[in-house]
């Protein structure tokens, strides 16, 4: 077995076990911390594909920014008392159905996608470093300019919405 494969199995074990623990733990803070470790191990998967940029961005954005905010919110809300929220049966049913649908879509995507090994060979044949951030930037701003700009507009809208929601109404209006 090659070293990469061994590392892949170790990383996958960490990712999956941490994801399951995040779901099954009662304590919300522990759950968030498991999720942080899970996110960081996904960064490791990116490193296995030799894409340092995506690995680092995964760690900065998910582990470093989003999870910090989630942990922060949980700490402020004091969910520590482990009070179980009563969930009606309909909600659970809908959750199960939605999850199954997402699973089907993901499986279909995986079946129809190119196997990774073949893709990497194809990139190697071009003789270009497709992992480099320069190449990534050029591709993002040429071929994928419109989706890229749409994503930025979406983020901006979400940001303005969050500011608007948190803004208090001025008295006398």
């Amino acid at each position, binding site marked *: 077995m090659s070293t990469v494969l061994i590392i892949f199995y170790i990383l996958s074990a960490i990712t999956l076990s941490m994801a399951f623990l995040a779901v099954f733990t009662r304590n919300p803070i522990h759950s968030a911390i498991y999720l942080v470790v899970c996110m960081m191990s996904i960064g490791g998967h990116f490193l296995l594909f030799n894409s340092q*940029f995506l690995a680092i961005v995964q760690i*900065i954005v998910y582990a470093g920014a989003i999870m910090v905010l989630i942990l922060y919110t949980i700490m*402020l809300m004091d969910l520590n008392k482990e009070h179980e929220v009563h969930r009606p049966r309909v909600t659970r049913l809908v959750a199960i159905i939605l999850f199954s649908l997402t699973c089907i879509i993901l499986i279909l995507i995986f079946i129809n996608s190119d196997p990774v090994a073949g893709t990497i060979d194809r990139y190697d044949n071009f003789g270009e470093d497709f992992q480099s951030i320069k190449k990534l930037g050029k591709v993002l701003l040429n071929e994928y300019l419109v989706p890229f700009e749409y994503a930025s507009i979406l983020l901006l809208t979400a940001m303005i919405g969050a500011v608007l929601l948190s803004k208090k109404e001025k008295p006398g209006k």
Partner: protein
Amino acid sequence: MDSALIIEKSVVIVAVFVFTMIMAMYSTWAERKVAAYLQDRIGPNRAGWGGLLQPLADGLKLFAKEEFEPNTPNRILFFTGPAIAMSTALITSAVIPWGDKLELFGRTVILQATDIDVSILYVFGIVSIGVYGIMIGGWASNNKFSLMGAVRAASQMVSYEVAMGLSIIALLMMTGTLSLKEIAQQQSGLHWNVFYQPLSFLIFLICAFAETNRTPFDLAECESELIGGYHTEYSSMKMGFYLFAEYANMFISATIISVLFFGGYNYPGMSWVIEHWGNNAGNLLGMLALFVKLCFFIFFFMWVRWTIPRFRYDQLMHLGWKILIPLGIINIVITGIVLLRSEIFAFLGF
């Protein structure tokens, strides 16, 4: 991979690690000395000449102290907090270029533990993970003051990371690379980035103070309000780890400021020295130059600590979100205009 390369890299990594530890140790000594001189005192002068053995005595004292544990349901997390703080403080030094290269025993030794393409982002990633050490430690202490300190520290660090990132973007637009090694190389011959990006340097410096939780931004351990902040419940070497991590972070920040803005290992006349005295002499002098620069910035951190009083919390947030972030964006726009000036002139028909 040949074994010589592995040995070479191991030696470099161990050297960087030992150097970081020694610098962090002696920063505590320097802090006391600087504080003493600024307050017209003498400072530590009993252990060794000029108190030089004081850090060792401090470490020994911390090891010998009673290990107190609060009654917390999260014992493992209580131990994890200082471990995260310490390890994130130490692994940042992996990507710092200490010099260009040395020729030893017929081999070319690159004076950097690892040269990855995205070293600046790596530093940012590690810094953003460093928040967890404080948050988890403060929360697991099961103490309201600790939790308040942790929450303060987290919001402060997250807020200033944004401004720090924005200040770096302007610099990256100019250098066109994310690798610290290349950024250091581009600044040879007094083309230091601080002359081209003074605003970026200023924002980065202020954010570095906030990220290392140093005065005037040490709201996380504000004694008058929060006892000791997030490390109130910690004792013995666990407390020592938190304090040590702060000094290690300070050392790393000083180094990164020197590399990004003050030419790193470059000094005036470096090419002349390499030409006349040989490569090794030139690069050893370069390492010395970097050392002098980072020592100045460590001194600067201490100088500010004993000069400027602590900010109020709303002032801190106001400075971060309403002054530094807009300034960073303006800086990016100005840099963009200057970089594309020929295109803009052509477009306007000059």
